């Protein structure tokens, strides 16, 4: 239950969003064919938490790398080339590579988790045009707000406004 609007122009979309926010309508979803700073700016969201995933993942990876190398070397101590059993210098390579590997994967996982992909179902309030050339705004709204919202969207030059339920 809500309203989805498609815009042709970037500045129009930005104005619409601004206007809606001015009307205390903030629970909207904005669609844009490509990331635009203008939109990011008007929506003004909190910083993405993905970086925490990166940090934790990378840290765990590095620790695991050192640990597996040292533990296995010590598990069955065999001397090679007169080197010490657990040689941390070369093991840094293992630590580093695993930091990158697990860090990178957890970053991707972080993105998936935060932006809820993969989506098994296509939810409402969306239009294929948004991956083409159009900007879009989806406002889940109760019928009472519906008129105001539609009016606002149209005023800012929405090419097409659609009610969904």
């Amino acid at each position, binding site marked *: 239950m809500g309203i989805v609007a498609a815009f042709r122009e970037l500045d129009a979309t930005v104005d619409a969003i601004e206007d809606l926010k001015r009307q205390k309508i903030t629970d909207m979803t904005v669609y844009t064919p490509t990331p635009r700073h203008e939109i990011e700016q008007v929506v003004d969201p909190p910083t993405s938490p993905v970086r925490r995933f990166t940090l934790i993942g990378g840290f765990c990876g590095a620790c695991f790398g050192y640990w597996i190398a040292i533990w296995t070397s010590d598990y*069955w101590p*065999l001397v090679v080339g007169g080197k010490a059993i657990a040689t941390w210098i070369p093991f840094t390579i293992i630590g580093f590579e695993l930091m990158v590997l697990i860090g990178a994967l957890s970053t991707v*996982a972080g993105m998936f988790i935060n932006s*809820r*992909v*993969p989506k*098994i*179902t296509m*939810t409402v309030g969306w239009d294929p045009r948004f991956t083409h050339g159009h900007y879009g705004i989806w406002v889940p709204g109760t019928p009472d707000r519906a008129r105001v919202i539609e009016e606002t969207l149209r005023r800012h030059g929405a090419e097409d406004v659609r009610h969904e339920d």
Partner: protein
Amino acid sequence: MTSRRKWALVPGFVALAGAVALLSAYSGASSSQNFTPEQPINFPHPTHVQKLGMNCLYCHYSANKSPDPGLPAVGTCLGCHNPIEVGPNRPKIDSIPARQSVEIKKLLDNYADASGKPKKAIPWVRIHKLPEYVHFPHMRHVNAGVACQSCHGQVQRMQRVYQFSSLNMGWCINCHVNGYKPADAVRNTEGYPTAADNALPPKKARYDCSACHY
């Protein structure tokens, strides 16, 4: 909401798959444990060991002085199961053809001539087989007090012998590193370890690769 729950399935499944893979890798898969072949003669170990109280070393005569445990020659069998001479050693049943067991007939018909001379060797099927790149000195283990049963199982109870241990490398190494408790030897030979036995420290062995691989 539903989409959120569905979404949570994916990583869960991945994690599960990973765990399964690890476990399957860890289990010593490639072992011919419990290999129980049909032998040319169904030699009853229980009869000889438990009933007649023969020692393993009577037939496997070089287990304590050679890497190779040794197999009884047909001559050794015929020492008792002799078709002609009636000696003290000779099992009663042999003399009563009616009660003579099929297996002994096999022995006498196929592998010995009427005069009681060995005729041809018995092609036993090998059960406990280590790869050729592993050198297993039986005598070192036997002399160290390792009971035959520890590796070969309770052969004296087996109507048909099977491979008791996995014989894979981890199985060897565990004993070499953690050591072999003399008390286990007593237990494995159906004895009851005394306090003294239990007090004895476990016997460890080399875990250097070149101890077995060369």
